[in-house]
Each structure stands twice: as C-alpha cells, then as structure tokens.
C-alpha cells in the first residue's frame, strides 16, 4: 500500500508533484516578495504595507553556493539509518533575486555542482512514518 504524501511544513510550497513552487507572499503596496511568507507587516522599511497576496516563486534559479552534510544533522532532522551524506545548495531565484537554501536531490555530489548552475525545484521525501510520506522542496540540476 502506498503512503499518503503530506507536506512536511504547511503552506510553504504547492503540493504539485510535477511542477512544484515555493509559496511566498507579495506586499500589495510595494510588491516586495517574502519567503517564508510574511503576512502581517511589510519588512520594507519604506513601505508600511499590511496586505499580502500569496505568490508562487520562480521554480528555477542559479547556484549561489553549495556544500554538504557528511554527518547526520542533530534532531529535529530525521536522519535515515544508515546516514547517507547529501548536498545542500543556496540558489538565487531567477525573478525574485532571493537566495533559498534546500537539500539537493540524492545522487548529486558536491563535485557535480558549481556556482551559476541552473537548478529547479522538486518535491522529495524528507522522512516517512507508517502512513505518510512527508515531502519537502529540494533542488535538482535543471533538465
């Protein structure tokens, strides 16, 4: 029996398995975009806006930098046993000029990455329990 896909964090990304987007907010007054969502007061000190609309962020961007975890991070990270090292990338989103960090999908090593490389957003398993498969955004070299 297959497990139910569940977002590992509520409202941070669309649950569209083929073309997922991170979900941010856009200030209706100054158009600045925030991720994770800013929903009460605009953080642009010249604005003062208090109304926001949900917005899908660019699915693609270019690598600003990258690294990996050679050892399992501490809780609350849920590490697989045995732990498999994985890469992490900081990607500058195309339109928003915002750097967003995320795990890189399995199989892509540090040696496969370089600054400026185009990456795209995918949803992948963060961890699983008996019934659910908890999904998180990850970066993957763009096709």
């Amino acid at each position, binding site marked *: 029996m297959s497990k139910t896909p569940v977002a*590992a964090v509520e409202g941070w990304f669309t649950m569209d398995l083929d073309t997922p987007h991170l979900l941010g907010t856009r200030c209706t007054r100054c158009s600045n975009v*925030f991720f994770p969502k800013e929903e009460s007061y605009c953080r642009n000190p010249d604005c003062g806006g208090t109304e926001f609309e949900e917005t899908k962020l660019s699915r693609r961007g270019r690598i600003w930098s990258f*690294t990996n975890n050679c050892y399992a*991070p501490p809780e*609350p990270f849920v590490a697989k046993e045995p732990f498999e090292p*994985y890469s992490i990338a900081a990607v500058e989103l195309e339109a928003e000029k915002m750097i967003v*960090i995320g795990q890189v999908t399995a199989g892509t090593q540090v040696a496969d990455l370089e600054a400026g490389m185009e990456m795209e957003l995918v949803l992948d398993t963060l961890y699983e329990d008996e019934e659910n498969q908890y999904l998180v955004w990850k970066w993957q070299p763009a096709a």
Partner: protein
Amino acid sequence: MSNEVAILGVGMHPWGKWGRSFVEYGVKAAKDALADAGIEWKDVQFVAGGDTIRNGYPGYVAGATFAQAMGWQGAQVSSSYGACASGSQAIATARAQILAGLCDVALVVGADTTPKGFFAPTGGGDRTRDPDWLRFRLVGATNPVYFGLWARRRMELFGATEQDFAKVKVKNSQHGAQNPNARYPKAFSMEEVLASPMVSDPLRLLQICATSDGGAAIVLTSMEYARKHATDFVTIPAVSNVTPKYPNTLIEMPNFSTDSGAGVQMPDVPFRPSIAKHAYEQAGVGPEDMDLAEVYDLSSALELDWYEIIGLCKEGEAEKLVRDGDTSVGGRIPVNTSGGLGAFGEAIPAQAIAQVCELTWQLRGQAQGRQVEGAHLGITANYGLFGHGSSVIAKR
C-alpha cells in the same frame, strides 16, 4: 574625547570542556578583571551580563546571577542576549551607562557551559514557526552548512583553495599555542588540518570551531575615574551593534532565504561591512590605522571574509593576505592573535568580551609569546544570529 570609556581591568577563565557551572567561569573572570583593575567588587556600580540561553532558565538571566555569586552589593544590573553579539551588547550597555553619567564603574561578564557536538535548537517540541527549529528539520542546515556555503562561495568567486583555509587554521593555532586561555594549545600542521574528516565540504573538522566552556570579563570606567586611578590605560572609542539595512541579500544563519533583491534599491553598504564601518566612523579612524584585529572565525574560511569586511583588503584579496603571512603575528596586520575561535571554540556570551580582553593585553604589551610590537589600535568584529552586529575598537 567625550565618547570614550576606559578599560581598567580584563580577566578570563580558560576555555575548555570543564563541565562545571558557567557561573563559576564568569565569577573567576570577573574577579581577575577586578584584581587587574585594582577595584573592589563593592565599588562596582553597574553589572552588565552577557547571557547564555543554555543551563536552565535562560542562563539564569545572567547579570544578576553573577552579582549574586559575587555577593549581593546592590549594583544596578542589565542582561543582554544577542547570540554571538551578546558580549558586545553588554559592553555597549555598560558604556552607555558610563557615558550618560549614570555610573563610573561597570563590570561586564559573560560565560557559558556548552553541550557536546553541533549546536542544535534549544527546547523541546515541534516549533513549526521557529526558523531556527525548521532549518534543522527541513534542510538539516547546521551551522557548519552555512560556513560551508560561505567557504565554497570564496572558492567559486575568488579561486580560494582548501590550502588557503587550512593556512588560516595553522596560523591561528600557532597564535593559540601561545595563549594560556586557549582551549587547544596545539600548533597544527597543514597536513593535520587537511587530513581531518570532511564535515561540510570544503570544511573539515579542524576548520570548524568547536563549542566550549569559558568566561570573560572587563571592568569599564569613566575617563575621569580612570585618570584618577591609573596613569596609562586602554580605552574604547567605539562600539557598533548595527542591524542590516533592507534588503539583506546574503544568506545568513538561521535563515532559509535572503530578502528579495529585486524590488528595492540595495543598501549603500551591505550588513557585514556596515558593522565595522559604523565602528570606524565612531572612533574617527579607518582600517589602515589598525595594528591588529580579532574577528569571528567560526570557520577558517570565514576569517578570510572578515579581512574584506573590516577593510584590511579589497574583496577577493584575502587569500593573498594569509598566503603572504600578513595576518600572522609579525606580519603587516595580525588577525586573531589570541588564536581566535579556532583555538578557543565558541562560548557564546563570553566570546565578544574575550576579543576585547585580547586587544587590551596586546595594546598593553602583555601578550607574551604572541605580542604585536607597538600596537596602539585594534578592532574586534563578529555578529550574532538574526542580524546582531558587533564590533569594538580599543586604543592606547
């Protein structure tokens, strides 16, 4: 100058993994600083504590805990927490009290007892609105992950090499080997550094600072008081605790993302350089006037970023400084003569105070075995999580 205060005493408890209460470390450092100043505890009018968030009810909210352990004597008190900037915030608070004429003698104390291994979020339970909890949960973004991102960026942008990063570690370990307060009194070789296990590529275990127990304290007084009680002393002409200006487009712990750089004009000076700039402007000096610097080498590679941030060289030139030995004791502008975090490890509320202790010893000519000859002016720099800038200038 009207905005200066005097450092009459400094003291530290050696860094290590002693497994005792942070209060003990803080009191030891405080007593040493008072003895160094020749000032009685009962004459202290203001106690500024740098807080730890560990060790129970957040660091026993530090200021009063230290005052109680020294023996209640009725002093005014403050307690500051600004992550790695906690110590300099405590210094800033004490300085402001003195400059406002509210007191003449202030004691600044910070100390910590740390757990083993990675820093992880404190407190239990699922905290799905806390970015510090979520970064571990969703990405496994430990502190070394951010250090690794910054280090790799230097490699991609400026052609930095693993050897450059290792060289910083080797240099600082040589300095630290001459410092009785350092946790690791060992001078490492390039081979040893490069053979240590990879943690977050390109950073290896010996290039990432550990977590330590330790304590540091300084006694600050008004210039008037200092002139009455001493003939020659170090002063603080600047303390900077700036925050970033929007948008901050550098990825910072513990954030998932930066501000968007698409919508508004970028600030004239980015956050990190603004920390030192503010201090230089207060003191009316510039980076070319500095004789030494103590900066936050959370990783060996990050020290190279600091050379540029505090203006010791242009962006992209930091590797050359360490390759040429400019930042070693005996070089043009020695950096982290104490051994830095590489030799100490982080004892968060104490570290920014410890940086000032090192400057003071250097400016007095008391840094035996690691002395920068003829040093008159030095700067410290670091910053705490969530955007707490921290820089202190000391002069003699």
